[in-house]
């Protein structure tokens, strides 16, 4: 297992995702002899996990069963330990496409945060790219490095514990893309420019507030960035279900009293129809942040 390459079978040291049911999962590090407690009972790593195929059904001690999943950056995003607010898959997807990331891309990122985006970047730029990620907070940067090692992607990433607004990314002229998720992105724009390749590249800044976007766009324009473009994407999840709609009874019709077509709901005498539909949730994420993209032209 690695976050950048699939394996067929579960091995000692792997991180697996235990799927417990609808929207209920947990990440587990596989260690022989270890046990994991779930609501369905105990999972014994040696007998239940190691050597099993990813995607298998595992029966727990209480008789309930779970699925063991191969980790992906997307499953990690919904299962990772939160050290900060994190980026979610909808934004990550657009960041990845709009930054034109692909195998071999060199990317600078700040801050590392909880590593949600970092994992998705690493997945995309492997096996030949590199991620330079800068985190101001020492504890967080250490934790991130540990995770990258556990997830077997540490050869693709350099974690730096410094202030990107003051010290930059620690690299010059190497990046195809820069991503900023910091409170004052405008302060990091000159550093971002310096980190980017001579021939140019792409930049993205994520900010929750419009005032941050305004100052960032100004800084980007001041520093010669082009194609400056701010967008926002909202995902709506639909719940697929069957709904029952009553049919009105206007009383007997002039001609014949035919009610043959209608289906009676048992015990009510009311005719109704069933309709398959998809309904949005009552409440959804109404805002995560604005994504501002720009192109650094050739120097």
């Amino acid at each position, binding site marked *: 297992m690695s976050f950048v390459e699939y394996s067929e079978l579960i091995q000692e040291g792997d991180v697996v995702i235990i799927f417990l049911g609808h929207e209920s999962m947990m990440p587990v590090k596989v260690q022989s002899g270890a046990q994991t407690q779930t609501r369905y009972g105990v999972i014994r790593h040696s007998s239940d996990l190691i050597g099993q195929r990813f995607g298998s059904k595992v029966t727990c001690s209480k008789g309930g069963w779970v699925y063991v999943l191969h980790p992906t950056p997307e499953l990690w995003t919904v299962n990772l330990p939160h050290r900060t607010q994190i980026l979610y898959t909808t934004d990550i997807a657009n960041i990845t496409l709009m930054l034109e990331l692909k195998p071999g891309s060199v990317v600078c990122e700040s801050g590392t945060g909880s590593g949600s985006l970092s994992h998705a970047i690493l997945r995309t730029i492997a096996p030949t790219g590199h991620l330079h990620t800068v985190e101001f907070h020492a504890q967080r940067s250490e934790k991130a490095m540990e995770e990258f090692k556990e997830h077997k992607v540490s050869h693709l990433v350099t974690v730096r514990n410094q202030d990107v607004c003051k010290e930059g990314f620690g690299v010059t002229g190497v990046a195809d893309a820069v991503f900023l998720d910091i409170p004052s992105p405008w302060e990091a724009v000159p550093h971002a420019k310096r980190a980017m390749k001579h021939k140019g590249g792409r930049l993205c800044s994520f900010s929750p507030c419009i005032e941050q976007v305004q100052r960032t766009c100004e800084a980007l324009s001041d520093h010669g960035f082009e194609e400056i473009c701010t967008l926002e994407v909202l995902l709506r999840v639909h719940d697929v279900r069957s709904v029952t709609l009553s049919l*009105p*009874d206007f009383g007997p019709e002039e001609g014949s009293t035919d009610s043959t077509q209608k289906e009676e709901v048992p015990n009510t005498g009311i005719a109704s129809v069933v309709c398959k539909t998809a309904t949005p949730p009552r409440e959804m994420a109404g805002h995560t942040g604005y994504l501002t993209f720009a192109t650094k032209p050739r120097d």
Partner: protein
Amino acid sequence: MAECVEDSDAESRISYGDYIVLKRGDVFKSVQVENKKKVIFEKQWFFLDNAVGQLYGTIFEIVAGGSLRVKMVKRAGSSLNNDDSKEAGQDNRHIMDDGRSQKLTRDDIETLKEQGLMGQEIVQQLIDNSTTFKDKTEFAQQKYIKKKKKKYESDITFLKPSTRLLSMMYHGREPGKICHLRYDTLAQMLTLGNIHASSKIIVFETCAGLVLGSVMERMGGYGSVIQVYPGGGPTRAGMESFGFPSSFHETLHDFPMCKVNALLAGTLDLSEKDTDSRTDVSRDGQLDSSRETSGVFQEGTTEPQRMEVSIDPEEEMKRAEREKLRQQRAEEKKVKMEERRKKLTSASALLQGQDADGLVIASRFHPCPVLMGLLKFVAPSRPFVVYCQYREPLIECYTKLREQGGTINLRLTDSWLRHYQVLPNRTHPLLLMSGGGGYLLSGTTVAKSVTQQKSEEPAAKRLKLDMSTPSCESST
């Protein structure tokens, strides 16, 4: 030029019997002011009595024993601009991973309060400054908000009911009762339906009476509303909550859905005894006054038949009493029946002309047959609007209307509603939004003609109806 009208504060004071809306933050509750009535709102209980005589808009706090006390509020006035320096999340990076996820200190919150921020805004601040809020599940977010609200918002404002307040209240508290009709969608319905004074509007709804009430508010007691209702009787709790003056109620008529075909066929017997069991089956699953009334009648008829022969004086007395009671009941029944007959007659008369000025449908029924059935009562060149929580039934409606003609300007729409936080350097859409507000189908009726003839056809149709009316009336 400019005239200053002195408000009559009398009508602005809370009295017993008034319907009011309690407000805390963006949570609302509708109640009627009654003597020693215990109200539970946001997990706190209190009595309304101290509010009587106070002005609408007053803010109360709850004191010992569930009494209300008028709160002396320092009205906001200081600018929000003071904390300009506070960049959103500027100090994000300084937070240690020590479990303290809230960036606002107790002092910060006090400062916010001094700046005149209301509890609601403070809670928003707390949310914005929580590093973990965004990462919580939606459920956990709701819990967090509720918890914080309870802590920072202990005041209750007493407001006069309005469509705005009641539609937001139902949407927030009991969306299931109003078929998840969102307030902005209701707003579209009232406007697209051209609801206004001095018109004749047909309403079919199973939204607890909220849609009915909002239509009546827009009509201001002028014109007529005909509520066509399914089951045993109309549902009106939501409408009652508006606390309309009695004159408004005189403009409201109701007509049972199950008599629509009879009315159209001209076979509606207005004298008929209400023995049709259909009307006793509440299809709304809700007990309302009219059903209870009909329950009383039934009791009379199911009384065991008596065949006594003994002439025990006590028995005789009892018998006399029973006879009296029976007569009384029969009398009551007659009066009630007469009332019902009158109501049915007036509603029928309003519908029979097939010249309603608008049709508003919002129900858990399949909108297609409902619309097809009721559209017949609408005059040409009038708007109609149909709400449905789901998309598919309205697609069916749209298709059917296109096939059968007689309507134009058909539009199937839904809308996207976003609320914003506007604060210096922290402006953004709210992190939570409503997932959907339901779907609307709206359009305009036109004369339905089979041939190329001009407007003779609708005229002829009209004539036929006028002719059928007397025959119907004569049977009463």
